[in-house]
């Protein structure tokens, strides 16, 4: 029985020197140079996705600066100071969890303590982790200290959500962006850990793990640990596949064949077989989409791109011959759009996609009322209205929206032409705001109502220097739009509307009541003395 938990990999194999931080060469090189030249800044900001080494680098930097053996390069990891920091008992390294201590009081306390000189180290290092969770007041209280701290203090801020930091904080720090790790660097690091743990894990297994970790080393280390605990030190491809819920190709091939054959009954049986075996249906969906994509590539003649064995290629070619290009594109779209997020464990979205694929040929469904298990042989390989993907639910005339393929969206409304200059850009945006934002509908997979947010929760305030400033009335919507992918979408939309690349900045504003009576009165020289509470 475990009395004491041995540490998990991501804690045990935390890098202890800058050279061990993988995949972040620009960051580590800059830091090493700064150390060698003795030009360490007093405030750093480390930002980047999870599991890329922010906190680890911050701790290493603290060690390197304070190392008793020099302090001009890598930490020695053997002197008393390095050891104290590694074990988390150094007095002069203060690691603060900003998400739990987020108020102005904690920052005030920190400010008071900053003035004390370090007890044994050269510098007092403050690591403020998850710094994006500080309240606005706390950020502001930090500003002066961050700009001109006492000579013995160094601040390192770390966060995954840099867009939540105020610009005033950003401008006072040296910013380092940590990037997602490439598959190669993840594999390299896992290999190293494996060697030192005495594991025998073949490199294709590591590659598979790395692919599933999407650039986060911590996720990869977790997966490796789970694998080795579950299956012992000898791990093969089958075991990883089982752990990740990957089906292997057979059933994927099977299903794709049924899709193209329009064999609904067999296809349904296959999908339910996958479910019954407890495999991950989302993974299965991904594999089906992948396979269909490869088929499509082969069909178009781009065979060189497809990376499979010659045998498989031959099989794929024979499969590709069954169906027309249009059907294949439609099937690919339907399966890619099947939304498994609401209920991960229900095979229904896949079953629906399959049924719709079978329905595609010439609305066959409309005539076969009354019979069960309709014979579904391929007949007319084309949809009548030229939109293969939209005729899927066509039988009943019921409006259907859920997994609408991109192409199906209504044509863009015609907009009045745009004059140049920021002033006119703003008035243009204001005048056409509704039409412009209506294009956002369904663009974001996570926020299906993106257009509604843009329409009713904000307004364009100014256009300056290729940046559109959006004023939001509530923080919730502002946060949503500020998320990287959503902001990209909005930027894309606005750039398209304005005819040149623009960025988006979000601020909070008061909702202005757009009242023509009020503006007329103001024009005639009236003055606002009291704001009534009559809105909405």
């Amino acid at each position: 029985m475990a009395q004491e938990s041995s540490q998990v990999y991501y804690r045990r194999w935390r890098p202890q020197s800058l050279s061990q931080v993988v995949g972040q060469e620009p960051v580590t090189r800059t830091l090493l140079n700064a150390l060698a030249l003795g030009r360490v800044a007093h405030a750093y900001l480390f930002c980047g996705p999870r599991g890329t080494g922010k906190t680890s680098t911050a701790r290493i930097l603290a060690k390197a600066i304070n190392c008793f053996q020099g302090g001009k390069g890598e930490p020695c990891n053997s002197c008393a100071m390095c050891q104290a920091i590694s074990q988390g008992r150094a007095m002069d390294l203060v690691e603060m969890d900003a998400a739990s201590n987020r108020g102005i009081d904690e920052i005030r306390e920190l400010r008071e303590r900053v003035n004390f000189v370090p007890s044994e180290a050269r510098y007092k290092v403050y690591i403020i982790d998850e710094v994006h969770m500080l309240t606005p007041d706390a950020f502001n209280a930090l500003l002066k200290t961050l700009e001109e701290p006492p000579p013995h203090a160094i601040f390192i801020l770390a966060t995954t959500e840099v867009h939540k930091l105020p610009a005033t904080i950003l401008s006072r720090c040296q910013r380092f962006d940590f990037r997602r790790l490439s598959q190669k660097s993840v594999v390299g690091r896992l290999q190293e850990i494996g060697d030192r743990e005495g594991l025998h894990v073949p490199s294709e297994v590591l590659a598979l793990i790395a692919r599933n970790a999407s650039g986060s080393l911590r996720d990869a280390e977790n997966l490796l640990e789970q694998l080795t605990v579950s299956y012992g030190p000898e791990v093969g491809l089958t075991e990883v596949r089982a752990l990740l819920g990957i089906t292997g190709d057979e059933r994927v091939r099977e299903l794709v064949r049924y899709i193209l054959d329009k064999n609904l009954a067999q296809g349904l049986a296959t999908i339910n077989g996958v479910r019954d075996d407890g495999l991950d249906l989302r993974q299965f969906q991904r594999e089906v989409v992948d396979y269909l994509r490869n088929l499509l590539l082969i069909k178009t003649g781009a065979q060189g791109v497809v990376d499979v064995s010659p045998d498989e290629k031959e099989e794929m070619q024979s499969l590709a011959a069954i169906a027309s290009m249009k059907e294949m594109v439609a099937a690919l779209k339907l399966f890619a759009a099947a939304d498994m997020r609401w209920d991960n464990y229900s095979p229904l979205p896949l079953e629906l996609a399959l049924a719709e694929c079978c329905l595609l040929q010439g609305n066959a469904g409309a005539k076969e009322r009354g019979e069960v298990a309709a014979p579904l042989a391929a007949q007319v390989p084309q949809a009548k209205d030229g939109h293969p993907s939209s005729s899927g639910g066509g039988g009943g005339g019921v409006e259907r929206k859920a997994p609408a393929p991109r192409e199906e969206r209504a044509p863009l409304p015609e907009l009045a032409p745009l004059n140049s200059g920021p002033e006119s850009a703003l008035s243009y945006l204001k005048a056409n705001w509704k039409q412009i934002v209506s294009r956002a509908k369904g663009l974001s997979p996570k926020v299906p109502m993106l257009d509604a947010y843009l329409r009713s929760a904000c307004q364009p305030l100014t256009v300056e220097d290729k940046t559109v400033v959006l004023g939001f009335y509530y923080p919730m919507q502002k946060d949503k739009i500020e998320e990287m992918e959503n902001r990209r979408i909005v930027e894309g939309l606005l750039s398209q509307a304005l005819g040149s690349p623009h960025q988006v900045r979000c601020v909070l504003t008061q909702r202005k009541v757009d009242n023509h009576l009020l503006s007329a009165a103001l024009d005639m020289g009236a003055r606002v003395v009291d704001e009534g509470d009559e809105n909405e």
Partner: protein
Amino acid sequence: MWPIIGQPRALAWIERSLKEGRLPHAHLFTGPPHVGKTTLALTLSQAVNCESDDPPCGKCPSCLHIARGIHPDVVLLSTEDTGLSTEENGGSKRSIGIKRIMEIQHLAHLKPYQGRWRVFIIQGAELLTGDAANCLLKTLEEPPPNVLFILLTAQEDRLPSTVVSRCQRVEMRPTSTETVRDFLVQGRSLSSEHAETLARQCLGRTGLAVMAVDNHPEWQQRQETISALASLIEANRDKQLATASGWAEQFGKAPETTKDTLTLWRSWWRDLLLIKGGCPPLVTHQDWEGQTIKQAQQYTLGEIVSFIHSIGNAIQQLDQNANPRLVLEVLMLGLPQGMR
């Protein structure tokens, strides 16, 4: 003995990591409702705190205390009973606020009181507010020694990736129909036909099947809903619209119930799809076979598919705060007319 049905992979992993002394400090159990997440979490906390040689024995004082929910070192944070007023909990009943997490962080730094490990089980981890989740991050990554976090969720996507990345993920997928059936036959001595029907109905969620055998009120409720749904398709418009407004009213009081009803109805229509598609043995509601086959004959495949989409849309719109009455009435009006 681990009282879990199915889940061989999750069990094997936990048993091995216990044996090798490599239990991680943070777990995330993901899986649909009623597959045994809470049971496994409680059993794991028994296993680490058990006083006998063969943990979890289920008989020593520690195990008994945990089973009764009175062990001082095992904290089960559940959404149903947060013990806080709405205001204290950050304005919402259906969420876990930062105050609860700070309490946990405080507790985590105290030595275990009775057992060896302090265990924190967070049920419905997807209901952590953004503040609460962020607040937990550092503690979750490097907790004090002898602290075990177990997060349970049915909707992993709604958890921040930063939280997921700090936990060892244990996926609990629905159990296969045969396993549930065999368990019902052997463990609960049901006839194999009855067991088969129940196993199909519970879609691999063992907890549901157990509820059915024990005639749990929740299961009875479910059966009543199904029989109401069965006749709904053939009812006239007045009846359908009346049902819609009844659901809408219910939605005001208990939104989850209405959504469950819709989900159940969708599974009914899925049966129609399966029958129409030529796979009758796979249907969920086997005991209603007569009715479903008859109804499947009334509709075309296209109608069935598009109505299933409509139900999905309705659920989604309800999630997005649309007017419930309007949504549900539109759904009813969209019912395909079939042969009538």
